[in-house]
């Protein structure tokens, strides 16, 4: 049939696009490596300076001392925006953010920019791959794990790029992201690959669009949060060591020195996790409504439901930990990581190893 033929060729095009995006991600990976390499030649040591200067951890507090009088310098015609002085709060280490992977070197920065451009290109290829897959099957491209995985990494990179172009300080995430996206795609095209086809009736519902798209989006954002939390943990021990008068190893110094400060990373992780938590709540509720339509009960403690619930409770615990004395900082970060692991397990583990009604994994 004619229609079937176009579909098959579209599916093939999709595969080519995914492979091309993998090739470009690989190039982006090397460009990021070059960025880190050239950046390591810089000798900034801002963190160490901030943390070991005279009054130690109190360094940042001075920032607030000179209350700057602002306004129009001379005439009254120009209305300058009054300058706001900000001040770090109670006891936090006031450490400047690292300069980023390029370490302030022009060459490193150039490679970093190349890496970002390549990432944009790879993202476009991958997104086109996902879109053509969707067209080839005439439905949402989330019917099996191959499709989940490709969409998932597309969304991760998409969110990262959006944050980057919105001027947020996230370029530090470039290398870990590109690396894991390559791993994810590698898994997808080998272990998880499934021929394109239509859906079984149980999956054929507009709730698929709602529930699965938000689930994938939440996963992508949670992943960014987890990357932030991991780097926070490293950076925090580095800062703690410096503040305690120790000297971290050369490699650790070279890498961690260039990352944002622990406080910034922690805040980043918190913000993305908190921002997406209501959406995750919605995802579970949408799933329950769908289950109510498809299976006659909105909650039945199916393995997938149990693990979504666990993920939800774990992230709620993280939010509570942030608001509870004695649990902030590292402990909260560990909870966030555990929470993300439960998400991953729900995504890979339950699909592959646990017997569940949601066994559409196609593997």
């Amino acid at each position, binding site marked *: 049939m004619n229609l079937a033929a176009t579909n098959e060729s579209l599916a093939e095009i999709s595969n080519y696009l995914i492979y091309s995006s993998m090739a470009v991600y690989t190039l982006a990976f090397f460009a990021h490596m070059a960025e880190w390499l050239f950046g390591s030649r810089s000798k900034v040591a801002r963190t160490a300076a901030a943390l070991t200067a005279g009054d130690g951890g109190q360094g940042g507090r001075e920032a607030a001392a*000179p*209350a700057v*009088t*602002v*306004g*129009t310098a*001379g005439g*009254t015609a120009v*209305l*300058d925006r*009054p300058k*706001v*002085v*900000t*001040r*770090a*709060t*109670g*006891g*936090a*280490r006031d450490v400047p953010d690292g300069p980023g992977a390029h370490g302030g070197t022009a060459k490193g920065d150039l490679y970093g920019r190349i890496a970002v451009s390549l990432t944009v290109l790879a993202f476009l290829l991958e997104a086109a791959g996902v879109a053509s897959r969707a067209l080839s099957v005439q439905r949402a491209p989330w019917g099996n794990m191959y499709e989940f995985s490709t969409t998932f990494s597309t969304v991760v990179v998409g969110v990262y790029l959006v944050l980057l172009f919105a001027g947020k300080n996230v370029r530090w995430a470039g290398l870990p992201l590109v690396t894991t996206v390559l791993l994810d795609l590698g898994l997808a095209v080998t272990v998880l690959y499934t*021929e394109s*086809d*239509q859906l*079984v*009736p*149980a999956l*054929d519902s507009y709730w698929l669009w709602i529930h699965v798209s938000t689930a994938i989006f939440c996963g992508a954002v949670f992943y960014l949060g987890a990357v932030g939390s991991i780097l926070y943990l490293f950076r925090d021990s580095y800062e703690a060591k410096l503040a305690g008068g120790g000297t971290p190893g050369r490699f650790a110094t070279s890498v961690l020195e260039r990352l944002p400060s*622990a*406080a910034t990373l*922690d805040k980043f992780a918190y913000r993305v996790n*908190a921002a997406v938590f*209501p959406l995750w*709540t919605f995802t579970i*509720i949408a799933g329950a*409504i*769908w289950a*109510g*339509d*498809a*299976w*006659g*009960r*909105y909650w*039945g*403690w*199916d*393995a997938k439901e149990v693990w979504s*619930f*666990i993920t939800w*409770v774990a992230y709620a*615990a993280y939010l*509570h*930990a942030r*608001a*509870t*004395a*004695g649990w*902030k900082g590292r402990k909260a970060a560990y909870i966030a990581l555990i929470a993300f692991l439960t998400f991953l397990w729900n995504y890979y583990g339950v699909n592959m190893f*646990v017997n569940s009604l949601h066994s559409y994994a196609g593997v």
Partner: protein
Amino acid sequence: MGSTSMNGSGKGTGEGGDGSGGPVEDTGAPAGAVRTAEERDLGEAGARLSTAPVEGAAETAAGAPGLGPVGWARWFWRQLTSMRVALILLFLLSLGAIPGSLIPQNSIDETKVAAFRERHETLAPLYDSLQFFDVYSSVWFSAIYLLLFVSLIGCIVPRSWQFVGQLRSRPPGAPRRLDRLPAYTTWRTEAEPEQVREAALAMLAGRRFRAHRAGDAVAAEKGYLREAGNLVFHVSLIVMLVAFAWGQLFKSEGGKLVVEGGGFSNTLTQYDDFRSGSLFATDDLTPFSFVLDSFTGTYAKSGPERGTPRTYEAAVTWSTPEGTERKQVIEVNRPLEVDGTKVYLNGHGYAPVVTVRDARGEVVFQDPVPLLPIDSNVTSTGAIKVMDGYRGPDGEKDQLGFQAFFVPTFAGAGEGDMFSQFPGLEFPVLALTGYHGSLGVDSGLPQNVYQLDTSKMEQFKAANGEVLKQRLLPGETMQLPDGAGSITFEKDVREWATFQITRQPATGWALSGAIAAIGGLAASLFVQRRRVWVRAVRGEDGVTVVEMAGLGRSESAKLPEELGDLALALNAQAPTAPEPVDATAEGATT
């Protein structure tokens, strides 16, 4: 950090002032760190910026209640309603949910539990005693979530009162040193201090701050929605739990197989199987009935997934005692809903129509016989039982039983085995072997309608002494030996569908709770609660000094930005005075 004293009326005044109570804040500040002199200057500025419980109260009491039963009870209650214990209970809840996802559960699939018991003879009793086959209704799991919800209620009630109190009272006055706050700005103006304060009050009120004058300053606060949202969220959790529990107690759920042309009416006796919650009463069943007009299944015809189902549709006509009669198509994701009861389509198969004649040639059986699918191409098996009316060649009463094997799409003659090649009805073939004797239906034991108990039956043999076995195409007849009668596979293969009929009350409550929870959560996480102070006093040289400062429950990048906007707006009404010519401030500007 903040929660230590944010709401501590009368308790510490210190860290509250740093405004770090919220989630988007500092790290690593040890709770109860030594306060500096400036921090004490902040006074009550940060107090009552949230209703989070006073962390530390529980710990202080932890040492020695030593106050008799009342003291203990109070101590226990404090512990239970502390954030720390809530956190631990949340942990336990997620840990406790895990075994249920890995071990088969009675509530989901009893046959799997039985299989598990057979495979693990030593583990099973242990699991039994730990209630691992019924995790979600086990004593320990219930204990965790009930404690959590008691803790939640114990936390919400006082927080709500506190919040009401905060709504009634006014934002606290300006701390002595505004420049110690997280965001600060100042300028000099020729406007009178009184004028500036007036303008500030109007400007803040215009931006929906709750503002009032306090001494030489204006104090304002905004973002109460955060707290309200947080309370709504936690209350909604309770609503959802209660609705869920209510639904479990009163629910009813059962299955029914209906052949095309057949029907179902919603009374207990009509169900093939039925389960209900412990408080369910029979007259809770919604009175209605339906007839299955037709069932249609379509399947992928080609490609690698040939045979994969595409659509299942059950066309029904349903009616209520009041006389409404309507037609509707039930699909997998689209149940029929009658007055709170939902009818789901959840399975299908074939029911070939067969006619059995006895030795006299009289029709003793003519019905569609539903057969159970054993694979995804709907290869089906089942039994045909002729219980009464049959008379053998000698005229004596007897019973007949046939084992039936059915394929909707036969591989073709000579292709060996009887396994269907496709789930659609393309080349139906029915294979039969027959028995006569006692079906054993009177033995008093419940019998599976799809299985034949041949222990008291004798198999028909062909003339050559071999077992009588025949494959029939529609319209064909198998003769029984010795003129014992015949069985005909009519040119009529009906489809059957299984329906699940469920009623779970309070679903609406659960849904409303869920929606409120999301709304509350969004408000609680996205709204910033913050305070702004504007102080205007006459400086030593007679020029008015305006100082503005902001403090958030959560330190956010937006706070300084907002303060900048406010300052700009106020600056328009209280323009910056020219610098004194001697320009002492000149150096400071850089």
